[in-house]
């Protein structure tokens, strides 16, 4: 076999072209890696807050909490259902607010959740990190850390209008271990009802179950009584449904863009390798004269283009790691409101990106390698 150092050093000798080609591949891998990281981030954001032993009860046929409406009286019905923990039942109202984004024109939807103190008993990870909890009955809100200061007046100590002439003051900032709840605004359930004339109703009822296994019995009881028209989902299942479209969309768009760019980068790699083969006719002819087979020449040049692509791939993947520090906000299709995501570097994202880079090198380098393999050993004799 022709030694690997022959290829690696040939790449380092032509630094400029190696870097130019590597950079093109790095760009593609960056785009791919970043979008895969984002898709992973979206999944993680939604999945992290969800529990197997929490059920979400909504009106049958609703896609999400916002489009669901139940009577407040149903809360006691839910707490009496088999498997439900009576003291951790949380009736909540969810709606969206159109808010002005800081530093960008136009308005964006933000999810607003009206809660009682049961909301936090179900979600113990929700913690106030600045300020304090809103007090029941007062026109106060707390905002998730991911949207804090991202919208006009959504800032500790400032006020904004829930609706015309209904100002509320931001008294706290909370976190929830990175879940999508961190992109919400929470206020007292009764304040929200009063502001929007929704007395006596809730969007959804969250309930902690005795155990994850208790869900089936609970669901059967809730949905069995057709006159109420209830629908019960595990929180994990609900959250998965909410995120899968968005994650799939990002994954597909990212892959499409990457494939599109990859064609360009692959042509770049191909041109580079064709030039390398043309410049090294005599070297290749000499290797053939010495007795190296066509197959080992082919392999050697495939190794060279793949090494080049992997170099670019590593560069791109390393650069995409910096995206870890970037927050990305986008519309979640299921709720039509803005959720802020982070880029999540996972081993599988890195592996996929590098495999993609290697494949680019392999495919881009194939025809030049074939040409190299066809160089006649007589080329060695030509001056």
């Amino acid at each position, binding site marked *: 076999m*022709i030694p690997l*150092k022959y290829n690696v050093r040939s790449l380092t000798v032509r630094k400029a072209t190696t870097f130019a080609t590597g950079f093109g591949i790095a760009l593609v891998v960056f785009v791919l890696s970043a979008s895969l990281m984002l898709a992973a981030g979206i999944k993680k954001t939604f999945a992290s807050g969800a529990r197997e032993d929490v059920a979400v009860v909504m009106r049958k046929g609703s896609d999400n909490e916002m489009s669901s409406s139940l009577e407040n009286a149903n809360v006691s019905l839910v707490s009496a259902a088999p498997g439900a923990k009576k003291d951790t039942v949380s009736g909540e109202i969810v709606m969206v607010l159109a808010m002005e984004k800081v530093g960008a024109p136009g308005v964006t939807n933000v999810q607003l959740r009206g809660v009682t103190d049961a909301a936090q008993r179900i979600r113990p990870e929700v913690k106030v990190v600045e300020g304090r909890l809103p007090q029941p009955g007062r026109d106060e809100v707390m905002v998730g850390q991911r949207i804090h200061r991202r919208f006009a007046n959504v800032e500790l100590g400032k006020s904004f209008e829930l609706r015309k002439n209904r100002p509320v003051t931001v008294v706290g900032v909370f976190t929830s271990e990175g879940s999508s709840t961190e992109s919400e605004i929470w206020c007292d359930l009764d304040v929200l009802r009063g502001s929007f004339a929704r007395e006596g109703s809730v969007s959804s009822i969250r309930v902690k179950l005795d155990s994850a296994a208790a869900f089936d019995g609970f669901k059967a009881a809730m949905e069995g009584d057709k006159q109420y028209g209830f629908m019960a989902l595990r929180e994990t299942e609900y959250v998965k449904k909410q995120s899968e479209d968005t994650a799939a969309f990002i994954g597909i768009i990212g892959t499409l863009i990457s494939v599109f760019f990859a064609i360009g980068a692959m042509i770049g790699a191909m041109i580079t390798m064709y030039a390398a083969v043309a410049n090294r006719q005599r*070297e290749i002819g*000499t*290797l053939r004269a*010495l*007795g*190296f087979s066509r197959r080992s020449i082919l392999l050697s040049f495939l190794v060279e283009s793949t090494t080049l692509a992997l170099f670019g791939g590593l560069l791109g993947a390393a650069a995409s790691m910096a995206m870890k520090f970037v927050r990305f906000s986008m519309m979640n299709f299921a709720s039509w409101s803005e959720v802020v995501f982070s880029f999540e570097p996972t081993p599988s994202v890195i592996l996929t990106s590098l495999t993609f880079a290697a494949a680019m090198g392999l495919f881009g380098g194939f025809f030049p390698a074939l040409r190299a393999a066809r160089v006649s050993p007589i080329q060695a*004799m030509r*001056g």
Partner: protein
Amino acid sequence: MDTATEKAPASHRDKAEALVSLRGIVKIYERGGEQLKILDGLDLEIAKGSYEALMGPSGSGKSTLLNLIAGLDRPTAGSIDIGGKRIDQLNESQLARWRADTIGFIFQSYNLMPVLTAVENVELPLLLTKVPSSERRQRAQTALRVVGLEDRMDHFPRQLSGGQEQRVAIARAIVNDPALIVADEPTGDLDRKSADDILGILEQLNRELGKTIVMVTHDPAAAERAKVIRRLDKGQLK
């Protein structure tokens, strides 16, 4: 130095001793629909242990003939027997394998891999043999010592003079202990002094190590140092 007239018949005398045996060699190139008959029914025998110079006008087909002997190309007609093997009947990959085992190459422009050091260049042919990797470096170093380059082992070709590059190439040509060494204008790119050094080494390889050498040259001074001088003209050897 002896001339062809004395030594050539000597090789004909004992056919069992012939290492190279060409019969009725025809080589036709086609160019622009035109057929060029470069070699026309050529016969040649080279005895084992001989050192032969191949001379002739430019374009007379010296390189063409050398390529045939070295198994780089195949004749249009005729048979080529080297060490008892009919190489004109081998296919591409068999020929490559055969070259690796049998031929040591010395080129006019040295043809070293520019990204490999002297010793790495010399090691290249050993990668095609069963020589274990631990032994390769040692053998390459020995070959470099034979050509007097023990102090240049880790130099890259660009750090060497033309004469030194050609000596590395000679080391590469002998490292496998091939049956036959072919050299196409090995001193063509060198100044007189370096050329003489190279010719001295070739002579030494022939005399002391018994290497069979075929060298194409148009330099009479170079040809003089071979044991046999052959002239190619109009597709035939004289």
